[in-house]
């Protein structure tokens, strides 16, 4: 049984720049690392929101048909609060995710636990555990507004992890971060994936997906365009062009060489592949 199931899900936004969801059929299994790629406004965020329950409960729009079932719960029948015990979401802007409810990092992380009525003794252990996991334990008494963007994203991750969701959705989490911060976030996410968490990551950083993802979905105009293993999807240069996306530099290099008959076999998606192929 898939942990996330989209059954011909159709969602209509009343007004926004994002595309409606036009009958999405998708199954994601427990423990998969799924990369979600697509041009701006294609509906990737809508897809993420649909797993989280933000669609249909918070967003301005209407379900036209179909359903989304997450960890056995139908998103239309359960509140975001219920779903938050199975799914967590990390958004792009580190600052917007700081609730401001806590004056220290540990209080910020405590917020979600407090809202869910977790007893205090459990809370203390859980916060310690989760802060250590993301590497922020030493900074726990600092103000969340006084640390770097990358660390703020880690706070967001910790806050979400505290509720022990099985699924983690990240919507362009490194958009505002520098390369160091980006690397930190990606390796943390991969670590969590190795520990059994299901990951859906929306990003343009294809080189990371090439290394870490089990599966890549190209998403456009509100629906899935291609869904497969990184090697097959990322090397399909024509597909990328057709959807207004830029393939990886190494892949484009390989493609150009292939046209000149200087390349044999599958196109490279990592630098390692490229080096091997050039030998």
């Amino acid at each position, binding site marked *: 049984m898939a942990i996330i199931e989209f059954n011909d899900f159709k969602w209509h936004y009343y007004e926004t720049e994002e595309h409606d969801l036009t009958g999405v059929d998708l199954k994601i299994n427990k423990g998969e690392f799924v990369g979600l790629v697509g041009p701006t406004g294609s509906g990737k965020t809508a897809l993420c*929101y649909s797993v*989280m329950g*933000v669609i249909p*409960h*918070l967003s301005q729009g209407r379900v036209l048909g179909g359903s989304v079932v997450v960890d056995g719960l139908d998103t239309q029948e359960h*509140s*975001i*609060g219920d779903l*938050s015990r199975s799914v*967590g*979401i990390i*958004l*792009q*802007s580190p*600052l*917007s*995710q*700081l*609730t*401001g*409810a*806590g*004056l*220290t990092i*540990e*209080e910020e992380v*405590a*917020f*979600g*636990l*407090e*809202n*869910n*009525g*977790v*007893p*205090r003794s459990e*809370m*203390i252990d859980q*916060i310690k555990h989760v802060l250590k996991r993301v590497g922020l334990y030493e900074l726990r008494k*600092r*103000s969340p*507004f*006084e640390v770097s963007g990358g660390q703020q994203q880690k706070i*967001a991750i910790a*806050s*979400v992890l505290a*509720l022990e969701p099985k699924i983690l959705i990240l919507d362009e989490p490194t958009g505002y971060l520098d390369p160091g911060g980006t690397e930190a976030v990606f390796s943390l996410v991969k670590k969590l994936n190795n520990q059994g968490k299901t990951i859906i990551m929306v990003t343009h950083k294809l080189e990371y997906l090439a290394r870490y993802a089990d599966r890549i979905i190209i998403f456009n105009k509100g629906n899935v365009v291609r869904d497969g293993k990184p090697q097959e999807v990322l090397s399909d240069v024509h597909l990328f062009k057709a959807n207004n996306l830029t393939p990886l530099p190494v892949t484009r290099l390989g493609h150009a060489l292939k046209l000149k008959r200087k390349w044999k076999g599958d196109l490279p998606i990592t630098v390692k592949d490229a080096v091997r192929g050039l030998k």
Partner: protein
Amino acid sequence: MAILQTNYVKRDSIIHSLNPMVKFAWVLVVVFLFLLSSSMNLFIIVNVIILIFAFIGKIGKAFIKGLAFMIGPIFLFSLIIHGFFNPFGTGSQEVLFSFLTINITWGGIMNGLFFGFKITALISVFYLFILSTYPGRMVNSLRAMGLPYKIGFLVNATLQIVPLMLRDAETIIDAQRARGLETKGKVWQRFKAFIPLIGPIILGSVMRVYERTIALEVRGFSAKGKKTSFYVEKIKARDKVLTIISLIFIPVYIMLRVVGWLS
């Protein structure tokens, strides 16, 4: 901590270590008197008491310095408005001094002094609170007393978000100045400058409220059921006692007023 910068002065004193609820009780009492009393003597006594507390709290110097700055203009204007013109027309009409069409009466001066002391009492008690209470502690102690969590959230979030936005405002002023925005000079120019400064601040922050709403929802902000609390503020017995003693002044005052002993 990046909390709203106040005039908090860190000292090691009894006043500082008191739970904020005690000092808050003092504020309530003075506000109450401010609204109801018309006795200048009472306000003078209040001012003296607060001054004493300030010195007990080892912030006497800072207190006087800051206060003088604020009450200087107040006494000045009060004496001018009431002394020169005596709009309330109360008190002794005995003319002390006269120039042009203005008669300075004793009653007017007394009124001027009265309002001066009254306002000073109000400012003093708040200033004492401000100087001796760490803002973060104030919110947490209110929460420990049972303040609904949504209100606690509002105050905490405000205390942290506002300084952030003020910093943004400073950055924007510098950035726009560097681009040639005229911020000094004629009044009209300065007015025009306001809009390109406040505009980006408003739009930027409002756009992000939607994301913040999602972040809150996802952490169970509107979940039903009992909430627990991570922070526990210690309330000592002496804090409870002092609070009650302070608040008793209110009913005592009312009684004395009714009986006619006070005004």
